[in-house]
């Protein structure tokens, strides 16, 4: 018997994603991004993103059908990101998924975007080891999760108390005169730089902070420290060593992220770490995570970069897990929940 065919729809931020998954196999994965439309604003503008989702919705579904070789009529269940994310953006995907589920008379699964990020890797490396610790880092989120059961038991150990890691990349890029989105440009600049040139602060790592915020993150202070350092050079009329700043900033981010992730693995006796989210594209973060996992005897799983950023594949992958585990579908009146807690993997 073949496994059910799941369509996944993602619209929580600035990527419209649609994909098909059967079991743990990705059959088609199309993403339309509005990132270029946000560039001159220096960050995602919710209304611009929502307009783009509506424009790209049908073309993206069509292309995903073509790429997968399937028709919508072949679908056995519909999965959609129902939160967390930008409310107006989420609503486009949720409305479409409901219409699809009703028209096809198939079950609808409203799923959590963060849990879906964790699930993306099953498409590359097979079933998720459980328990696993997951570190999710992007322009919209920075979370450390303990996943005992991806369908029903996900606990947030910590998250950012101010900026997301990806936002810090965008803001530092801006002060260095690099374009939006900052991640790839900082990475390119950092390649030529010395990561030990400047000792930027590591947020929430002091002894006092570790008591209350052991697994939380803070990037606002780091960002301000970088901006201050750069502006002091500019004021003094000195050249700004862009490469060294980029490399030292990246090191500070990667250091805190990986240090806390490994600490969580130790604390909970978990032998597997999974990282995901757009910032995972950063090679230094991946390399440092690997180094520290090796040293700690933790096995690291990182999906290919395309599956780290937002897409429909991860949504379909989580939908597929829920169907495989026999969970009840969501109701057709499920809301788009912009602040859906990660402990809620599936909407009721």
């Amino acid at each position, binding site marked *: 018997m073949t496994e059910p065919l799941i369509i996944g729809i993602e619209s929580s931020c600035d990527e419209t994603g649609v994909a098909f998954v059967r079991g743990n196999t990705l059959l088609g994965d199309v993403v339309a991004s509005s990132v270029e439309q946000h560039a001159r604003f220096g960050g995602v503008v919710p*209304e611009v993103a929502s307009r783009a989702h509506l424009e790209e919705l049908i073309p993206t579904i069509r292309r995903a059908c073509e790429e997968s070789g399937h028709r919508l009529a072949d679908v056995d269940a519909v999965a959609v990101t129902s939160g967390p994310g930008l409310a107006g953006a989420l609503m486009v995907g949720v*409305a479409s998924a409901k219409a699809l589920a009703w028209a096809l008379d198939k079950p609808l699964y409203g799923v959590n975007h963060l849990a879906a990020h964790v699930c993306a890797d099953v498409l590359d490396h097979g079933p998720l080891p459980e328990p696993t610790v997951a570190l999710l880092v992007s322009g919209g989120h920075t979370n450390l999760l303990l996943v005992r059961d991806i369908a029903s038991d996900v606990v947030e150990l910590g998250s950012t108390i101010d900026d997301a890691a990806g936002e810090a990349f965008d803001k530092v890029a801006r002060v260095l005169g690099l374009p939006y989105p900052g991640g790839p440009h900082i990475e390119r600049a950092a390649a030529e730089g010395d990561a030990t040139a400047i000792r930027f602060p590591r947020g929430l790592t002091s002894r006092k902070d570790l008591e209350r915020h052991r697994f939380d993150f803070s990037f606002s202070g780091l960002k301000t420290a970088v901006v201050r350092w750069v502006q002091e050079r500019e004021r003094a009329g000195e050249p700004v060593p862009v490469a060294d700043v980029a490399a030292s900033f990246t090191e500070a981010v990667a250091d805190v992220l990986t240090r806390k992730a490994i600490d969580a693995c130790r604390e909970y006796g978990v032998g597997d770490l999974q990282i995901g989210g757009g910032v995972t594209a950063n090679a230094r973060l991946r390399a440092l995570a690997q180094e520290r996992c090796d040293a700690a005897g933790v096995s690291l799983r990182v999906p290919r970069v395309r599956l780290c950023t937002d897409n429909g594949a991860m949504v379909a992958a989580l939908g597929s897990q829920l169907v495989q585990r026999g969970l009840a579908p969501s109701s057709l009146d499920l809301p788009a929940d912009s602040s859906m807690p990660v402990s809620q993997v599936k909407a009721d």
Partner: protein
Amino acid sequence: MLLLALDTATSAVTVALHDGDQVVAEESLVDARRHAETLTPMIASVVAGARHRPADLTAVTVGVGPGPFTGLRVGLATAVTLGLALDIPVYGVCTLDALAHAVALRPGSPAKFVVATDARRKEVYWAHYRTNDGFPQRVSGMPQVSRPADLSDEIRALPAAGRGPLLYPDCFASALQPLDVPAGALAAYAVEQLRTGGELLPVQPLYLRQPDATPSAGPKSVLPR
């Protein structure tokens, strides 16, 4: 023919079914905050209540606004997805035209009137209509968005349907029903246009406003002055 009509560009979520002769089912719910939650369950209820299945639908028509953006997009995303999934055509209708048709369908409706709906931010979406053989025609060109106090005396003197006169009673001479668009009138409008070869719109939102966003300036100084 079995046409599904839906609109989410006013405070109501509204759905109707038209068989080519008449409206055979209709439901509306006034709740401007829950468009995304209520629309598809309402479609399911209307279609099942009329003893039909999704595959029986032959076309969809949707109000393309103008209206508050988030709700408006729920209707459009739903309509275009139904069109794709069921492989049936989707027709756009200006929401104000559908509301004007609802006015014209009522006995004793005036020959000239305005439709003015809530555009939030102290503005209304509006258009000026004249009925011709019981069918409304826009005489003011494309719908516009204005502060009600900025409307011309000529427009303000006309009776007005929609929530505009309810929200800004000082700016309109008198109020007409309905306040929100009923999908039955939307369906009837689309059927009439299809029958007479009249104009239907592409399924694209009439936003009438640019997104609010200002291009980013350089980083602010964090140094003491």
